[in-house]
């Protein structure tokens, strides 16, 4: 669910497109946008305080075969939440391997690459200190 929630909507839409025919489902809860309060911790490790909210869209659906899928995804994209819930439901069916291979694996790879690229750029800005030996120490 983390992978699905973190995916860019366009990337998830493309990956779900690769799944081919999708099963029928009924909404248990239609996609709705709301807010989730995010706390931080004082000093990073202490007691919590409220930092601010993020937008989140949630929904739940039930496949014709009975499996239930849930989604809580950041942002306000209702179609994106629907796709995430559908994948969550499909993960409980015989198509789980297909979803892993065609949806989760490419999304995980894209996220890992995005992280690597940022980390590499950060690493290039790491300061390499060189110390000048002062006269009295020489």
């Amino acid at each position, binding site marked *: 669910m*983390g992978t699905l929630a973190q995916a860019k909507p366009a990337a998830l839409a493309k990956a779900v497109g690769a799944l081919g025919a999708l099963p029928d489902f009924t909404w248990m809860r239609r996609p709705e946008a709301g807010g*989730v309060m995010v706390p931080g911790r004082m000093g*990073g490790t*202490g007691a919590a*305080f409220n930092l601010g909210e*993020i*937008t989140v869209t949630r929904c739940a659906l039930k496949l014709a075969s009975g499996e239930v899928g849930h989604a809580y995804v950041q942002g306000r994209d209702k179609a994106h939440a629907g796709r995430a819930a559908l994948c969550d439901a499909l993960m409980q069916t015989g198509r789980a391997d297909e979803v892993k291979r065609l949806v989760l694996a490419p999304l995980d790879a894209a996220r890992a690459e995005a992280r690597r690229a940022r980390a590499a750029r*950060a*690493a290039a*800005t790491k300061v390499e200190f060189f110390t000048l030996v002062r006269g009295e120490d020489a």
Partner: protein
Amino acid sequence: MYVAVKGGEQAIDAAHDWLAEERRGDVAVPELSVAQIREQMALAVNRVMAEGSLYDPDLAALAIKQARGDLIEAIFLIRAYRTTLPRFGSAQPVETGQMACDRRISATFKDAPGGQVLGPTFDYTHRLIDFALAAEGEPPVAREGEANAEAMPRVTGMLGRDGLIQQEAPSDEAPPDLTRTPLEFPATRPLRLQALTRGDEGFVLSMAYSTQRGYGRNHPFVGELRIGAVPVEMEIPELGFAVEIGEVVLTECETVNQFIGSKTEPPQFTRGYGLVFGQTERKAISMALVDRALRCEELGEDNLGAPAQDEEFVIAHSDNIQATGFLEHIKLPHYVDFQAELELVRKLRSEAMAEHREAAE
């Protein structure tokens, strides 16, 4: 004599139409897209998210477009939108120690494990206008280095191991929320931090600056400043366990300040804390300084009566939407109020003039 009248509807409609036209500007110039604002005005977007208290870059970019770049107006739009959202719940506190850092510097330890990582900073630029940006062209490609998974432990954690800095008492208590319960004074530190993180950057900066200039001095070092992404996890009621629901970029600043000690505890450093949505470094440092100044009594320091030590003064005036609402309302019609004042001043004048005449006679 003035009387209250209705009217102005047509004038208001015409004003708003003209506003929309002015917002667009010269139609010979291509229109800005929301995505362009989100990607290329990212620090304005970050400020609107931080002070709007809602992390949603697309929405903040749209608000900036609608507000014609007036950031306080954009923050107002975000705050108003935020109130329409149902609250799904509260996430688990973010773990900034696990941050994927774009930037991480320490002004106290040159050789802090994990190193000094500058990130995409304005620091060390010459602040000369770059006329090359006025011409279209490709930006230089950022260099890539060898990213090793070296941990970046907290600088305050390193000091804490030797007992050199005050420990933050851990707690799993749900924090109070000033968007749900009206603020009362004295407030608690969690409420102060919530107010500061959504407070006006200019105001919080000025309060912090005042402490540096001597009004409630507390001598801060930037122990650590880090900027990067952290996952947001929330326990999903339908599932009964926590999952990642998203990711936010945060700026965290921990200051190391001068000492307190007691009969039971030898002297140790104290700390101030800043944590803000987005890449918002000036604000996070300011927040840490003001947080520390507001802790003066808790830490047994003299309250010198400095503005930055006055919780009610700082917190009651840090919110730019409250401030702008009260300030700007005075430009709206006050015809009847003013009529009363006018009557009063005329009466006072006629009395004063009558007394003057009597004295002269």
